[in-house]
């Protein structure tokens, strides 16, 4: 597979958007979908549809097998020890809520500390904030350095003897910093503190090996990983899933039910209440295959080249100020232009078919720390090429012209 030809597998790029070629630089928000993933959804609904896990008729049996095959593929792809450690959720946000809620119920008490970082997405803060209210816990934030990174030292400084769990991102969706999670996890474990990794931005770009990283929880957003919307994955070590209480209650997650009480089903059913996102899970198997076929190492290399090129171009463009300068950067470049608000930039870029995101990217804490309210963000996927950043740069120049900068 030729990495330069990958773009052809994404049907969206063969259509014009408002008479322009689409320069899609918003993959950190959500990635485009390859044809095979879309086809799988189509075929499943047209020829094979059934609910899973409940009926014993042919379609139901087949669908159940497809569904469980995805679980096995994910297990293999992220090198989890057991397939039961893969829980399907509606998104990474739900995955983090699941952990915060159940871990909080069982293990957090008044006065306990939860450690986050200043880089965290609201999805990895608000669920913990809830516990501040219900459980009277405290939340601490490890601080970023001048490069927009979180270092092991900053974590060390922020750990207290009351820290009960650390939750942090694998890759910042604003500064692009890749965090030294393996060292952080090893440090945390030496103090018996479990670690949740918000892998939303890590999973689409980096090689994942749960047993090597040794994290306790890892949250994945499938729609950012060339998969369908409405689906996430929570990886959790079996030892946690076994002792934590269930999250949502409903059909499929029970063992036996009577008027007085309930016993819960075994893993992973215990955490998959109600009818799941069947078609999405089944189609996500194709996303995994897509990633495997190219090879994540190749994707990483390609994306690094593209983003490095983009970084160079933007650094040369005066009045463009990059946010963060991490030593290891994932596929994210955020910036501001003096005198032009990010929303105005995004609107003007859009006119040329250049799709970026403007705003706080659900990271208000980081933006406040940097004395910003918003920023513009270009982020890449496997289908981006260097020319995309040339077009971005041209459009930025157009902004500057309009605003007379």
């Amino acid at each position: 597979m030729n990495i330069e030809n990958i773009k052809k597998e994404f049907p969206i790029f063969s259509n014009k958007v408002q008479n322009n070629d689409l320069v899609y630089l918003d993959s950190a928000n959500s990635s485009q979908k390859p044809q095979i993933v879309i086809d799988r959804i189509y075929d499943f609904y047209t020829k094979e549809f059934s609910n899973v896990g409940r009926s014993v008729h042919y379609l139901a049996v087949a669908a159940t097998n497809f569904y469980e095959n995805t679980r096995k593929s994910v297990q293999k792809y992220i090198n989890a020890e057991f397939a039961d450690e893969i829980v399907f959720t509606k998104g990474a946000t739900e995955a983090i809520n699941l952990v915060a809620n159940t871990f909080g119920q069982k293990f957090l008490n008044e006065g306990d500390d939860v450690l986050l970082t200043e880089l965290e997405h609201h999805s990895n803060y608000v669920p913990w904030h809830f516990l501040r209210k219900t459980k009277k816990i405290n939340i601490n934030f490890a601080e970023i350095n001048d490069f927009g990174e979180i270092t092991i030292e900053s974590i060390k400084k922020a750990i207290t003897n009351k820290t009960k769990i650390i939750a942090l991102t694998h890759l910042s969706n604003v500064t692009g910093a890749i965090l030294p999670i393996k060292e952080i996890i090893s440090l945390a474990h030496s103090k018996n503190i479990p670690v949740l990794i918000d892998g939303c931005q890590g999973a689409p770009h980096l090689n994942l090996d749960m047993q090597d990283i040794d994290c306790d929880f890892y949250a994945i957003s499938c729609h950012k990983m060339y998969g369908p919307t409405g689906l996430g994955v929570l990886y959790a070590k079996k030892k946690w899933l076994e002792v934590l209480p269930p999250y949502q209650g409903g059909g499929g997650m029970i063992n036996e039910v009577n008027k007085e009480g309930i016993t819960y089903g075994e893993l992973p059913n215990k955490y998959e209440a109600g009818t799941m996102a069947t078609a999405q899970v089944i189609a996500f198997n194709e996303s995994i295959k897509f990633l495997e076929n190219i090879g994540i190492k190749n994707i990483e290399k390609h994306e690094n080249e593209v983003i490095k090129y983009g970084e160079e171009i933007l650094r040369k463009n005066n009045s463009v100020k990059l946010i963060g300068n991490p030593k290891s950067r994932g596929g994210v470049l955020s910036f501001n232009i003096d005198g032009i608000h990010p929303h105005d930039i995004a609107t003007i870029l859009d006119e040329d078919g250049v799709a970026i995101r403007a705003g706080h990217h659900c990271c208000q804490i980081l933006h406040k720390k940097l004395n910003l309210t918003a920023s513009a963000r270009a982020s890449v996927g496997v289908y981006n090429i260097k020319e995309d950043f040339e077009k971005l740069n041209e459009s930025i120049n157009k902004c500057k012209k309009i605003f007379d900068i």
Partner: protein
Amino acid sequence: MNLKELYQEIILDHGKNPRNLRKSENFNKDAKGHNPLCGDNVHIFLKLDEKKKIEDISFEGSGCAISMASASIMTELLNGKNESQTKEIINDFLEMIKNKDKLDNDNLNENEKTKLMSLSGVKQYPMRVKCATLAWHTLTSAVNDSQEDLNIEKI
């Protein structure tokens, strides 16, 4: 869509050099507005006389060209207007932004109307409508003594 229409000279001017970007002395009404999408804030200050005529109107905050220009133009036009005029202008503006091509308002002269109309290009940019209306909705809650800070998503 038409970028030129959106970023007219007048918008760019008011966006860069917003009028009344300050805090009115002795204001007797105020309200804060916030756009959760971009994190932008606006704080409107009003000094009304006994008859509820606007003696002074000003704002603080930061935001995109559209939102700054909108707040700036709004404060310029409303200075000196009485209560019913203010309400009519707010309504007419919001109507225009939503779905009208023209502004029928007897309280504004042609020059003022032209200024206000300069914001109408935003209609074609649904995600930016909130930028143009934030100051206006915030003003409404200041006038109405609304307790809560205004969250633009509400509207």
